[in-house]
């Protein structure tokens, strides 16, 4: 391997880490919902893509500047998140984990089909900001749109952490995730906290969907399943319920994915990501930041 190959590989790893912010944000969403409700929302990544689509639709309707697209995506993500809570969780007994699992699968299929139905299945171009900016640093180049996605993702995560650790709502959310019964005794309305968690993760997810669209340059309903799988993998590698874990695992998976791609080609890339997950399951089932003893 000569120097040029090494530079190429490093370049693609760097791009991957920048793109990894979207995985990190999806991972945060899965982790938060699991932390609060001990339920999996399999429709989450599909909802994020759906929110990105909705933002395009609203943008076209309002004739607003493309810069607003991220804000619109986040807002529609929040609305869709609330709807998912209402449709898939509110009226199903919580003691039955299989029922909500299945209802979110139904929701995933429904969201995908709504997207296919409204766009006739044709991928749509997504506006990327700063795509004409290219920063050169020695032999490396940094794409402006990816940098923007990275910065935006970091800003979102900081905001989310501030919300969770500096506000009353965040305190309530963390209380519910630690001990629902005790939280209720302190006068916390579980249904309200659960619903708000879905709205908040929806906001994050909508932003992640928009960032994915901006980084890839287009949106397609085919994105939702791979993103679901990647988001879940990030959740597990980072450690269930751990937000810093999800962030680091997201960047890690993003970077390693591109490393595998440049070493072994695109068709084998995801195979190695899955194997990576199995390595974690065998040697560190709690994930990067989870406690080793706990195996929930």
């Amino acid at each position, binding site marked *: 391997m000569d120097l040029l190959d090494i530079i190429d590989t490093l370049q693609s790893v760097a791009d991957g880490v920048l793109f990894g912010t979207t995985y990190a944000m999806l991972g945060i969403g899965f982790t938060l919902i699991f932390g609060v409700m001990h339920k999996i929302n399999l429709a989450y990544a599909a909802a994020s893509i759906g929110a990105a689509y909705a933002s395009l639709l609203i943008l076209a309707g309002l004739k607003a500047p493309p810069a607003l697209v991220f804000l619109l995506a986040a807002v529609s993500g929040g609305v869709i998140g609330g709807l998912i809570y209402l449709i898939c969780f509110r009226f199903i007994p919580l003691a039955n984990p299989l029922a909500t699992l*299945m209802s979110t699968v139904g929701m995933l299929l429904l969201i995908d089909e709504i997207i296919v139905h409204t766009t006739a299945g044709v991928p749509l171009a997504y506006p990327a900001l700063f795509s004409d900016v290219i920063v050169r640093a020695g032999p490396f180049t940094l794409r402006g749109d990816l940098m923007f996605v990275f910065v935006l993702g970091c800003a979102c995560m900081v905001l989310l952490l501030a919300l969770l650790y500096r506000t009353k709502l965040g305190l309530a959310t963390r209380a519910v995730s630690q001990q629902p019964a005790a939280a209720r005794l302190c006068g916390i309305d579980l249904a309200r906290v659960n619903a708000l968690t879905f709205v908040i993760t929806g906001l994050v997810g909508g932003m992640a969907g928009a960032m994915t669209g901006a980084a890839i340059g287009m949106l397609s309903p085919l994105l939702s399943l791979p993103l679901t799988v990647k988001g879940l993998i990030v959740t597990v590698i980072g450690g269930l319920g751990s937000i810093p874990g999800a962030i680091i695992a997201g960047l890690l998976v993003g970077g390693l994915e591109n490393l595998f791609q440049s070493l072994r080609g695109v068709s084998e890339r995801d195979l190695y990501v899955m194997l990576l997950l199995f390595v974690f399951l065998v040697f560190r089932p709690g994930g990067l930041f989870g406690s080793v003893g706990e195996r929930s």
Partner: protein
Amino acid sequence: MDFYLGLAQIIGVHTLLGLSAYCVLLTGQVSLAQAGFFAIGAYVAAMLTVLAGWPLVPALAVAALAAGVTACAVSFPALRVKGLMLVVATVAFGEAVRLFFFNFDYQVARGDIRIGPHGGEGFRQIRYFPERGWSTLEVPLFIWAVVALVMAAMWWMDRSRTGAVLRAVGEDEVAAQSAGINITAVKVSAMTIGGVIAGLGGGLFAHYTTHIEHVQFGVVLATFAIAYPILGGLSNVFGTLLAVVFIQGFLVEGLRFLGDWRNLLFGALIVLAMNVRPNGLLDARSTTALRRLFGRQRGASGA
């Protein structure tokens, strides 16, 4: 008529897929790896009949065995975790199998064409049934004979001590463990049985479709596999059959006249069904009610 025979084939094979997930779900584990075992069964059986020239029945047996051994091997690391972690682990395994077959290339020249699995293009020319001159009636009959056999075995297992042990682990692991049940052994056996059934289904699937490729065995198929028993209810094996008929017969084929709207309705109806009947279409209460209706006053003993 041929349409209904074709539908019967699909329903039969999907019932096997659903039963494989049913077996694992009884122990309270959600496995999305069934599509992976299904794929292994499909490729192994097809390679044995097409490339090695084996008869169908031994090929199916070896395919089921291969899937079962894989399930057993994969369940040891996977069952160290449960809940969401297991879902993710099994999704990853299923995807790894799919990607393996996406990159799997093993072709031999037969005359002037090359046959065998060919990477992303898949495995064409699985012409066992047409070459042997099986009629369109014989194929579904054969498939349903296998399905009936598996269902009878599962029904029997469900009512024997084995079924009680599986359900005990599913209801409460700690209680089962303190009653002296080795829960790891129970879960691994459930996964293995599930793998065998899925492999059998996969082998049949490969032979009636004549062309298999990796995209058929993705996450969607895996979610269908668990959707059948969850939607049908875990009280007995007929719930799974009912759900397969509901999904494949009614939602997929019956609503075809709706055109594009069918796909939209599909997800919505699953969500609705889970809201209305969270324990499945055929839950323990309706089973008891049905028994009473048909005058067999056995009460809640087996249900």
